[in-house]
């Protein structure tokens, strides 16, 4: 399939047509998806029909996969949960509306952790997504389908959602680029809510330019989402084309580079990347984010509290699954939720409900919000000194299916390098920096100041020139 920008050029040069591209693509999906389980549903007929006469625009005829958290009018939307089985979105999310208006063709719904809750894409009602680099391993979560589909060339780009690392972790595990935008940069309207103050929709694709092409379309203020901010969008595509590392001030948070924090292979590749960046003129300095250690605790209080609230609406009254044989109104709601939600979702609803309970609110939720503001301030202070922060995405590469699923706390620790970005509302761009000894991709991230996505794309474009990631060809 190749890169998005190459495909655009091929269309422009009439080397291929959207229809030919999509015919090939669906052939590949039909062959590989049964192994990877990246798609929950493909929109073959609709996509082929659209490919005959794609709408003009910057993404005209470009096949894009959509995480099963994001509404596409008339299509089923499940959040990979049984509780939403049968629910069809009455209108599109702002992001899918914008993509469609730019000419993108939707290939299908991509698997994810149930309600985007998970780090391995194993918490889904429809079977885990497997990592295209090694089918015995997880694709990372929660946007596992979005990353695996891009890496396995089952779409040219995709949308994921990132609440605590859900775009960046699977991007790192699968070897793709993924952007978690500044909170308030992309509309959440029509996107199923996990944790409202943390959720952002973002693109996944092969490299900086492809990712920027999609982001350019979805970014911007939206009247339908009061938390989007009236800040002008940048020239992300331009920034990703040029790339410049000369004089770029890069911060290395000392708390992210403690001894033994990273697996040796990741440690080595990370150091090599730093050297490559330096060589191209980036200037490194140490920054300190002392409250990093509290990130996981704060995140799992805030995210579960908001999740418990957001998931209250799934009661079996208006749509989706409804339990049979109920004796009363209360019984209907209890049974529907007991049968409809998976174990991890229930665990988080319980945690969040507890954290918001009267008598515990101050000790948990309020305290967590207080520490959150400290974390945010530390980042803002750091960005007084540096343009971007360079950090690992995950302590390990993709782990085996089932390896951590019995230990939720171990699973939560996968997010140690990603959650603080969400707590602080910052943009972060995850990208592959090489493969470990087992051939599994290793990722790193540039973290930016609020609305500094242009800087991130420019930094990544520079890095890609300095140390291009060599993609293995995958045959799964």
């Amino acid at each position, binding site marked *: 399939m190749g890169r998005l920008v190459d495909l655009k050029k091929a269309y422009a040069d009439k080397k291929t047509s959207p229809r030919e591209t999509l015919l090939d693509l669906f052939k590949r999906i039909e062959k590989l998806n049964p192994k990877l389980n990246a798609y929950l549903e493909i929109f073959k007929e609709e996509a082929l029909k659209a490919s005959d006469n794609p709408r003009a625009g910057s993404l005209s005829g470009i096949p894009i996969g959509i995480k099963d958290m994001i509404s596409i009018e008339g299509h089923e*939307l499940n959040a990979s949960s049984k509780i939403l089985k049968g*629910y069809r979105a009455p209108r599109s999310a702002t992001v899918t509306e914008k993509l469609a208006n730019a000419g993108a063709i939707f290939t299908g719904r991509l698997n994810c952790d149930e309600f985007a809750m998970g780090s391995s894409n194993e918490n889904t009602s429809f079977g885990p997504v497997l990592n295209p680099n090694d089918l015995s391993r997880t694709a990372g979560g929660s946007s596992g389908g979005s990353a695996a589909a891009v890496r396995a060339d089952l779409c040219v780009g995709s949308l994921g959602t990132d609440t605590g690392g859900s775009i960046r972790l699977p991007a790192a595990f699968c070897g793709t680029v993924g952007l978690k935008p500044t909170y308030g940069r992309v509309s959440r309207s029509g996107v199923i809510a996990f*944790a409202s103050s943390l959720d952002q929709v973002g693109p996944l694709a092969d490299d900086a330019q492809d990712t920027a092409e999609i982001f350019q379309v979805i970014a911007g203020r939206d009247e339908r989402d009061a938390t989007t901010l009236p800040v002008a969008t940048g020239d992300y595509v331009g920034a990703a084309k040029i790339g410049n590392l000369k004089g770029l001030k890069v911060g290395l948070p000392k708390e992210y580079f403690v001894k033994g924090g990273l697996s040796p292979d990741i440690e080595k590749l990370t150091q090599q990347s730093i050297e490559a960046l330096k060589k191209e003129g980036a200037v490194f300095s140490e920054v300190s984010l002392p409250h990093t250690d509290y990130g996981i605790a704060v995140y799992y209080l805030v995210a579960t509290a908001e999740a418990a609230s957001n998931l209250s609406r799934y009661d079996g009254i208006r749509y989706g699954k409804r339990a049979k044989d109920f004796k009363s109104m209360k019984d209907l709601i209890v049974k529907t939720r007991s049968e409809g939600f998976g174990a991890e979702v229930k665990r988080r609803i319980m945690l969040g409900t507890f954290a918001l309970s009267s008598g515990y609110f101050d000790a948990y939720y309020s305290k967590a919000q207080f520490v959150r503001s400290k974390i945010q301030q530390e980042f803002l202070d750091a960005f007084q000194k540096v343009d971007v922060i360079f950090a690992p995405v995950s302590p390990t590469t993709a782990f085996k299916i089932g390896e951590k699923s019995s230990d939720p706390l171990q699973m939560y620790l996968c997010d140690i390098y990603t959650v603080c970005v969400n707590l602080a509302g910052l943009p972060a761009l995850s990208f592959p920096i090489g493969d470990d000894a087992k051939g599994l991709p290793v990722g790193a991230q540039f973290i930016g100041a609020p609305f500094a996505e242009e800087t991130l794309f420019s930094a990544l474009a520079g890095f890609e020139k300095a140390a291009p990631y060599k993609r293995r060809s995958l045959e799964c």
Partner: protein
Amino acid sequence: MLEEILKKYEVVIGLEVHAQLKTKTKLMSAAANVYGAPPNSAVSTPCTGMPGALPTLNKEAVAVAVQMGLALDCEIQPVSIFSRKHYFYPDLPKGYQISQYDRPYALKGGVSFFYNNERKTINLTRIHLEEDAGKNLHFDDRGISLVDLNRSSVPLIEIVSEPEIRSPLEAAAYLKALRLVLRYLDICDGNLEEGNFRCDANVSLRIRGASAFGTRVELKNINSFRNLEKAINYEIERQHQVIEAQEKVIQETRLWDADKNKSISMRSKEEAADYRYFPEPDLLPLRISSAYIETQKRKLPELPMARMARFVEDYARSPYDAEVLCASVDLANYFEVVAKSAGDFTMASNFIQTNVLAKIANVETDFKSFYPDAKALGDLLLKVIDKTLSLNMAKEVFEEMLSSKKLASQIIQEKNLFQVTDEGALKVALQKVLDENPGQLTDYRSGKDKLFGFFMGQAQKALQGKASPAVLKGLLERMLKGE
């Protein structure tokens, strides 16, 4: 019974009033805010709790809420916060209600009204903005319940008074005054029966002179002014019995049953739901600038108390008259036009109160199409002032105007109506009456004073009611004295 109790105990009442705002669209969605539409026809994705739908705050609702806050002299807060209030119920589609909790948009202020002919002010604690829930409809015959979400997310303001109300009558007066402000601002219909205006009462008793409050009980489901008084009376007697029996009043919520004239316990404090409030992350804090407040202030009409005070001052009305005449904007406007064009304020006030209001069922709506309109009535009263008509004749012309929709002058001309003031003609008629009724005349002279009216009536009858009552009366008095 009640009077006896209130000699020993003081009742302490605070009211929590919910008013639905008459905005074009809902508080948190673009769906229409309409009453009585077919079930689930005025809905959109946020107010039906669709996955991914986000609330968007209705600016019109904020504007009118701020106007209400200003009308009640509240301190409008520069920053207020929406929170989520959680509970599971089929008519609550998101599983939470968006409401202002610990940071409401308006604090303090008060509601003023005339009570026993004196100005009285009940202070407010706060006003906050929130969304309404939908409605569950139960069809027992079919064994099903259905949900109508047309009301879901309709804007409400909740106005919370300090516990400063001291009697059921005062509670009703407060509630009426509050409703009048809402109606003057034209932001709420203020209809308790239709549920766009709802009142909960917190009631407690304490020994007179005590400084600490007693345990309060919250009364819900009060759907009329009469029921407000009845429910509070019932609660006073109930709490009195509990206290006199040396037992403790339990903090609880009780539902008023208007059919059975009693309240039943709904839940105690221990059973109270944990609403797990937290700030609504989908909305930014509501920021209200002083410039915005000034803009809203300029939109305020003359408010009821100011208008009543002006009627007392400018039209020499009693507070009672002023209150009656200011019962609606339309009525007050009507009075002012009539009073100004007739020039006799007392006559205008009396004529409207005794004749016009007898024909008006609803002071809010009926003036829109009422005839005689203010101009026509003013012209009629001028005919009394210039003595063309007696007041009694004017009443007849008024009735004729009601049915024929004609002008007073037209009716006067057609019926050749005029007041006979010529003493000669009246004397002839009176003499005839006295001559024809010698028995009554003898009785009158032996002390039956009441017969004066009989002679007056007979004479008016003979003159087709056209005689000037004043002239006729003076003449008759003189004639009976034998002058």
